[in-house]
């Protein structure tokens, strides 16, 4: 079982620690490979075949194909590595952040212009449990 950490109490947040960096090593290194134009072309030509070059878990490969960002994070993906994948899709940090928070990009951008997600009510899992009744 994974060791409990004080930061596990921060809601809606996955801290990319040593354990997760090990779990997501191949997934993240796959993402990083997309910084090279030749690799981007190969990936575009056949995503599944390209993913099979990396010893990733089936769940990780499926989450890449689905562009399921929260799932990728839960499987050891790190946002700065995943960025290589969504940049390759011509998507921005805001686009992906909106998806991860379950809002439209328009709603999310508006929230940011209005000062962002407030920290009140978002500090601990207890606060989230209360909010959701």
């Amino acid at each position, binding site marked *: 079982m994974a060791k409990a950490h004080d930061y596990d109490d921060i809601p809606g947040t996955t801290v990319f620690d040593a354990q997760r960096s090990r779990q997501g090593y191949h997934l993240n*290194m796959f993402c990083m490979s997309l910084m090279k134009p030749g690799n981007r072309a190969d990936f575009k030509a056949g995503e599944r075949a390209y993913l099979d070059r990396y010893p990733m878990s089936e769940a990780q490969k499926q989450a890449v194909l689905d562009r399921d960002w*929260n799932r990728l994070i839960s499987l050891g993906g790190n946002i700065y590595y995943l960025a290589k994948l969504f*940049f390759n899709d011509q998507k921005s940090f805001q686009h992906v952040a909106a998806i991860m928070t379950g809002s439209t990009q328009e709603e999310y951008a508006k929230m940011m212009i209005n000062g962002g997600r407030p920290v009140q009510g978002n500090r*601990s899992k207890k606060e989230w449990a209360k909010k959701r009744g």
Partner: protein
Amino acid sequence: MARIIGGVTTSHVPAIGAALDNGKSGEPYWKKVFDGYERSKEWIRKVKPDVILLVYNDHAVAFSLDIIPTFALGCAAEFPVADEGWGPRPVPKVIGHPELAAHIAQSVILDEFDLTVVNKMEVDHGLTVPLSLMYGQPKAWPCPVIPLAVNVVVYPPPTGRRCYALGRAIRKAIKSFDQDLRVVVFGTGGMSHQLQGPRAGLINSKFDRSFLERMAKNPKALTKITHLELMREAGSEGIELVMWLIMRGSLDEKVKEVHRFYHVPASNTAVGHLILENAK
């Protein structure tokens, strides 16, 4: 003798670089960000540093999960601008200062900071965006830059206290360099932001403003903030703020605050910026 004349802190949001590179800096959304740096540009033109030591973090570009140095000092003669996936930013290549960098490395390692020396490294937006904010779009950067890359991507980053102490050691190293150079230290990243998961978009202006306030007057209090508190209060990526403390540690205890700017948002992030000068 070399000496540190001042310090700059600033966020290094990639979208700021993209806005400038794509000619969008005059649009209302971005103008609010760039306007906060007008005075800063004047200041740096006036003080004209001979060298900049720029503390930033690499964003899975020069370093991957293969090698994760906590503190990596760029000792090369030049640092190419990285292609982060959409082509390199159209900015000049970064010229280093290998002599001063080697001197700093030797000095701080003997002071018990186990730096990684890097002789070949591409630099990403973490380093180039702060230069763009301070210098605009010149044909060449006006002075050499020594990159100091800090790991804040894989938890845990170095503690705030350790960062501040490294700043002290860098200060000592620069002071003992036998060339008459005026150095400005940049501490970049932050302020509050979270880029991942259902809590993405978190901003904590109250925390940020208090952090800005204490940078000049009470930085030791900032070194006591735990990683847990930083992530809880300023978002998982807000932990980058530890890098500001390297800059602060490199200055005198008494400093003069020359400029302060705070703005929400640039994309997903709260933009915070300070210019501090050594008081005497």
